[in-house]
């Protein structure tokens, strides 16, 4: 949720850009396309009530719109701009006041003194936002002091600066500062809105905002109480002292000097959640374990070839290795038969022996086809009768008709199946009888029978099967699998995303890449020889030397290790940027491991000094947004840190400060909103959250500077 306390909807002064003009409709559309949910309209010396009301009506509950004005203050020779923003409930009265004070001047000529401002607007309990320092034309320090001293609401005087960094710096020096868009061109608003301040605490209304601004403890505690939290009772230390903390479903920070027991607190938190059955462990940076975590050596790496539509070819490999030659009928049998024509009278009478055998395979195929069709139809009929979706889609009449047609079809198919079966078996019987009679005549007469087959069919079928098996294996090993890419994390805007890539390749017979390892441990040489042999078998399936190649296959060392094509797989795993292999440094390893931890969906994140080995820029640009995103999703994030970028920029809902002084260890609990850290053993012992964090944390002052982006008035 973002806030913009300074916008223009109309070109009021002659120097205003025309692109400041925007209709109520366009204004609402533009704002709703951004994350801005609180916006103040502050035109130069003008308040347009009609437009305000139209915008307010259109926005409804989606966005709070606050009425305001940007006044030209001219006082004691000093000139500057002052925003006066009031409650939307007072818009009409505010409009009348503006009309009254500006009635004798144009927006260009109108000026006002601080006293006049106070006289006209202070009764509205407004928020005063004064252009400050680099924000020109700025209100002088003298006029600002006058405003602060004379107003009834000094806590509602805020300095407007030019950007988030300035705001943060002024906040760190005790100045309430904020910045708004001061938009000149609405076409650029959406882009500009990304840099507007975030609201860390929910703001219900203008009045609520003013109370939070004044650090009203009741208001802050009410807001904090609205947030889901739980009280943790921990025993983190050896002395059995109890630590009670309120853990928010948000960011909770433990900070303090080294050696003050922060890690013990985190471990106690992890133990607490683990005992409740919640996945919680303390994340510690260990950059040297990146390869191990990602299993770069592929110890547990597997791949399911079925999901890649790759046949494992288990039967095919077995059949190929067991393949043998089929004998053919010697032609001498024919010669002998014709040379010794039988003279036996009885033999001559047995005509059956002279009938030519019939071809069986087409009759068998016909039976198989009708058998398959009948089975599938019967199965579908059963499915149709049982499946509730079918019954929902078809009414009774339709269902009956479909069942009738399919039943008729099944009947015919069964008839065809039977006919083809009997036809096939008829041929089998005939051929069997011919063979039997020929053998019998041969046996009884001593004369050779006419051979029933040249042996060509069986010979050819054997080779065809070898071709099919070899082709299936080659087809499998020639299938490419896509590189599996896993996002490891971002290495920042310069380098981009670090990926972890896993490449699977089948040994093609020509692969020599040393970076590829055997997935199953089968020797790479064995794999290579195997694939080359199978390719040769396929190439020579119908050549005279086929069985030499099959013998070569069986003679490969350790060939028995290859039972499926899975054993022919090679792989390599590596980190990469833009597809190119990349070795992340230890700092980069820390970066991506932390991202991985935060990218895992959990209820509780416990991070022990996540900043270790990481640069400030990376913490600010990547880690802090990730932590905040987890918090926004309602997760509990516990962080022990020395880094101000994390402790300050995340504005934790709960802060535990550990300190070791002359009297031993002390613990303080608080938050940045009340700006207090309270010793639970002595409520009078309080510390200033901002001062302690600036003093204790590395980069404290700078972090406060950066933190202006998140609006909090410390």
């Amino acid at each position: 949720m973002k806030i913009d306390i300074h916008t223009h909807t109309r070109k009021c002064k002659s120097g205003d850009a025309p692109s400041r003009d925007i209709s109520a409709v366009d204004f609402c559309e533009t704002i709703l396309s951004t994350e801005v949910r609180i916006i103040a309209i502050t035109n130069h010396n003008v308040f347009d009530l009609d437009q305000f009301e139209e915008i307010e009506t259109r926005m409804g509950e989606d966005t709070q719109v606050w009425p305001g004005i940007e006044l030209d203050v001219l006082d004691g020779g000093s000139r500057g701009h002052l925003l006066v923003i009031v409650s939307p409930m007072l818009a009409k009265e505010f409009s009348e006041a503006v009309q009254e004070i500006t009635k004798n001047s144009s927006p260009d000529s109108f000026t006002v003194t601080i006293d006049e401002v106070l006289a006209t607007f202070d009764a509205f309990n407004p928020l005063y936002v004064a252009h400050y320092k680099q924000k020109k034309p700025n209100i002088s320090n003298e006029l600002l002091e006058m405003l602060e001293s004379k107003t009834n609401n000094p806590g509602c005087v805020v300095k407007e600066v030019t950007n988030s960094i300035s705001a943060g710096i002024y906040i760190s020096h005790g100045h309430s500062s904020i910045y708004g868009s001061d938009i000149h061109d609405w076409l650029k608003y959406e882009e500009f809105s990304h840099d507007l301040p975030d609201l860390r605490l929910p703001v219900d209304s203008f009045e609520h905002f003013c109370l939070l601004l004044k650090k009203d403890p009741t208001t802050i505690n009410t807001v904090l109480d609205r947030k889901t939290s739980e009280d943790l009772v921990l025993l983190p230390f050896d002395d059995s002292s109890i630590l009670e903390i309120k853990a928010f479903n948000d960011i909770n920070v433990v900070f303090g000097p080294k050696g003050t027991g922060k890690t013990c607190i985190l471990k106690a938190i992890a133990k607490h959640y683990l005992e409740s059955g919640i996945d919680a462990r303390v994340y510690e940076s260990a950059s040297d374990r990146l390869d191990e975590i990602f299993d770069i050596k592929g110890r547990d790496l597997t791949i399911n070839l079925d999901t890649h539509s790759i046949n494992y070819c288990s039967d095919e490999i077995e059949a190929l290795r067991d393949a043998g030659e089929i004998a053919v009928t010697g032609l001498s049998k024919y010669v002998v038969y014709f040379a010794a024509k039988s003279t036996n009278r009885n033999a001559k009478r047995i005509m059956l022996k002279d009938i030519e055998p019939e071809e069986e395979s087409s009759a068998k195929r016909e039976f198989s086809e009708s058998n398959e069709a009948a089975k599938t139809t019967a199965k579908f009929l059963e499915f149709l009768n049982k499946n509730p979706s079918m019954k929902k889609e078809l009414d009774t009449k339709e269902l009956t008709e479909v069942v009738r047609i399919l039943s008729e079809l099944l009947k015919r198919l069964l008839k065809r199946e039977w006919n083809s079966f009997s036809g096939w078996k008829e041929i089998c019987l005939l051929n069997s009888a011919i063979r039997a009679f020929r053998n019998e005549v041969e046996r009884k007469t001593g004369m050779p029978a006419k051979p029933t087959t040249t042996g060509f069919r069986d010979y050819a079928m054997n080779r065809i099967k070898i071709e099919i098996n070899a082709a299936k294996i080659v087809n499998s090993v020639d299938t490419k699998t896509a590189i599996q890419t896993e996002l490891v994390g971002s290495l920042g805007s310069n380098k981009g995303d670090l990926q972890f890539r896993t490449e699977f390749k089948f040994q093609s017979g020509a692969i020599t890449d040393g970076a590829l390892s055997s997935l199953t441990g089968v020797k790479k040489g064995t794999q290579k020889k195997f694939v080359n042999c199978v390719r040769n078998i396929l190439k020579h399936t119908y050549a005279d030397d086929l069985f030499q190649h099959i013998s070569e296959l069986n003679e490969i060392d350790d060939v028995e290790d290859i039972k499926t094509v899975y054993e022919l797989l090679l792989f390599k795993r590596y980190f990469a940027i833009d597809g190119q292999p990349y070795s992340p440094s230890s700092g980069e390893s820390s970066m991506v491991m932390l991202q991985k931890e935060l990218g895992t969906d959990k209820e509780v994140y416990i991070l022990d000094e996540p900043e270790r080995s990481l640069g400030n820029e990376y913490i600010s640009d990547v880690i802090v947004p990730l932590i905040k995103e987890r918090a926004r999703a309602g997760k509990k994030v516990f962080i022990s840190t020395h880094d101000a970028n994390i402790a300050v920029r995340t504005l934790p809902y709960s802060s535990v400060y550990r300190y070791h002084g002359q009297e031993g260890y002390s613990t303080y609990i608080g938050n940045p909103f009340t700006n207090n850290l309270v010793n639970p053993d002595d409520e009078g012992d309080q510390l200033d959250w901002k001062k302690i964090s600036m003093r204790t944390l590395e980069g404290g002052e700078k972090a406060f500077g950066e933190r202006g982006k998140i609006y909090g008035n410390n």
Partner: protein
Amino acid sequence: MEREGKSMEIIKATVESLDDKHFIKIETGIEEINIPMSEDNPNEVKSAFNKIINRIKGGEFQIKLEEIKEDLFSQVANEYIIQLNREIQEVHGEMKEFGL
């Protein structure tokens, strides 16, 4: 059926003899296939079968003996080719089934 779509290709075969050795010579148009009849030579028969299989891959065909004489080897060749044609037809059907 293929046979209904186009006429079956016919390949000629003859009975040849050379140095008292008789063999069936099949002219495929691409290469010559010889099947020895006067001696059992399984390797030569297999070699001939390999060529026939390769020829089937180019399309179904039947072998026709040019001249059927009354001598022994013509009778053997005739019977052998009758059986071979039947088996060629079967193998072609199986090949089609397997999509080869």
